[in-house]
């Protein structure tokens, strides 16, 4: 069977060059970079080289990069570390309703400790109103945290403009750039961010490694206490192979960013136009202007059908995508991002994300466009909501209205 992977925002395959670079660090150069002997020396240089590669991709100094285990760790570290370091300055954080759970759940845990959090709403396109952001800042605000790109819709947020506002009010600015790095240009100087988080497995490096940019002079209480690794900023023996892989993945991403993005963008646009042309009663989720979304992401809802059924049908044809349906999220509610955008809850349940990557081809897009319309049609025929003549029951209305 054909296997078409269009779920690159969930995770990516490790790139061949990345794996090759990693392999020597499992058995030959297996030392602990903190050791002074040959086994340690053989690897400490490799860690520092990776640090330079990561730094180059986001335009910072290597000393400002700290290696961590994943994007979630970086988000926890940024928020909790800031609250601990700046608690005397204030107790207020501003973020958005469309952040990844790594931010939202961390904020909830901070609220239990007495931190006040403003969750900025978004409009129907999933975009922020910067006047809202500016209005939310008080003299107790210690952090603004806005993601660079949304994982579900691909929406790109105006990070430079937000950075300028943060500077104006002298508020620290953190961005979860897990979905942005490697897909669009990311420059921490231009964007004036103080903390930025990236994760390896979204850009062809392995799972279990990430990095956080900490602008020089940014006081941040460590999240992981212990040994002296990473100049006391993150304890735990270095994941050397993972770090080496992350470095190579960043270098590859940087050197091909323009061409890769353009090619993937063409495929995404073809898929988008193809679906819009072939299937009626659908809704594009995220910003209608494809320039304001990641070049690889398409999120679309198919009225009357539920996302998991769609995914399973796609899967039977070898197509891997993802869904905002409650049934696939591990929670009982459909996607909070769809909810924040006031997408009708039934449509939210059918929101389907196609996230392309460097390995996708035009043939794959053609294949998806071929098998998708009949699957949608078949499921619609099975749906009690489709071609309905009687009015909806109370229960159903409730279903459809139950969006904030």
């Amino acid at each position, binding site marked *: 069977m054909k296997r078409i992977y269009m779920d690159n925002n969930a995770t990516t395959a490790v790139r061949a060059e990345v794996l090759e670079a990693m392999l020597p660090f499992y058995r030959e150069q297996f030392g602990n970079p903190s050791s002074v002997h040959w086994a340690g020396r053989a690897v400490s240089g490799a860690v520092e080289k990776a640090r330079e590669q990561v730094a180059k991709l986001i335009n910072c100094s290597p000393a400002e990069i700290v290696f961590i285990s994943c994007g979630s760790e970086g988000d926890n570290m940024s928020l909790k570390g800031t609250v601990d370091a700046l608690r005397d300055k204030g107790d207020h954080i501003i973020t958005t309703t469309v952040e990844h759970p790594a931010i939202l759940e961390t904020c909830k845990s901070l609220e239990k400790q007495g931190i006040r959090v403003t969750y900025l709403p978004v409009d129907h396109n999933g975009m922020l109103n910067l006047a809202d952001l500016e209005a939310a800042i008080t003299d107790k605000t210690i952090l603004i945290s806005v993601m660079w790109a949304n994982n579900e819709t691909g929406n790109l947020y105006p990070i430079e403009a937000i950075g300028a506002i943060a500077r104006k009010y002298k508020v620290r600015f953190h961005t979860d750039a897990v979905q942005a790095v490697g897909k669009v240009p990311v420059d921490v100087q231009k964007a004036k961010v103080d903390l930025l988080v990236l994760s390896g497995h979204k850009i062809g490096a392995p799972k279990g490694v990430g990095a956080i940019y900490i602008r020089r002079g940014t006081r941040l209480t460590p999240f992981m206490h212990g040994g002296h690794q990473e100049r006391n900023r993150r304890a735990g023996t270095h994941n050397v192979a993972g770090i080496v892989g992350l470095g190579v993945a960043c270098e590859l991403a940087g050197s091909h960013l323009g061409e890769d993005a353009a090619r993937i963008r063409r495929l995404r646009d073809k898929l988008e136009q193809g679906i819009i042309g072939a299937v009626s009663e659908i809704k594009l989720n995220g910003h209608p202007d494809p320039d304001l979304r990641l070049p690889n992401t398409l999120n679309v809802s198919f009225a*009357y*059908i*539920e*996302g*998991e*059924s769609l995914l*399973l*049908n796609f899967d*039977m044809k070898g197509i891997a995508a993802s869904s905002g*349906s*409650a*049934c696939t999220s*591990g929670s*009982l*509610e*459909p996607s909070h991002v769809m909810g924040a955008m006031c997408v009708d*809850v*039934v449509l939210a*349940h059918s929101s389907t994300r196609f996230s392309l990557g460097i390995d996708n081809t035009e043939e794959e897009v053609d294949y998806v466009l071929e098998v998708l319309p009949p699957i949608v049609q078949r499921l619609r*025929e*099975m*749906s*009690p*909501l489709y071609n309905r003549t009687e009015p909806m*029951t109370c*229960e*159903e209305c*409730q*279903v459809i209205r*139950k969006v904030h």
Partner: protein
Amino acid sequence: MYSDKVMDHFSNPRNVGEIENADGVGEVGNASCGDIMKIFLKVEDNVIKDVKFKTFGCGAAIATSSMVTEMAIGKTIEEALELTNAAVAEALDGLPAQKLHCSNLAADALHEAIRNYKEKQA
């Protein structure tokens, strides 16, 4: 995640559709899980002669709907009322834990349809 039987009923659901002038129609739904199931009955001499369904929902919702129609056909109303969601899940060789509480409502929909049938009779 799903058993082979679930996948079989999901990919080849039995008795999809509507029954015109059905003797009983039942619908149940669960907003948070995104499942709505609608069951149509044809009853003759207290025996269920035909069942059809339409379902908006996940794989488990569609498979349980399909399975309940197979299980109900030929049963008396009383027998059909004894069919439980658990029995449906069992007939499908089980369901993932997180599906048991929210997508496993097909027997409820059947009971709703029988209630509707009885109402009409009364």
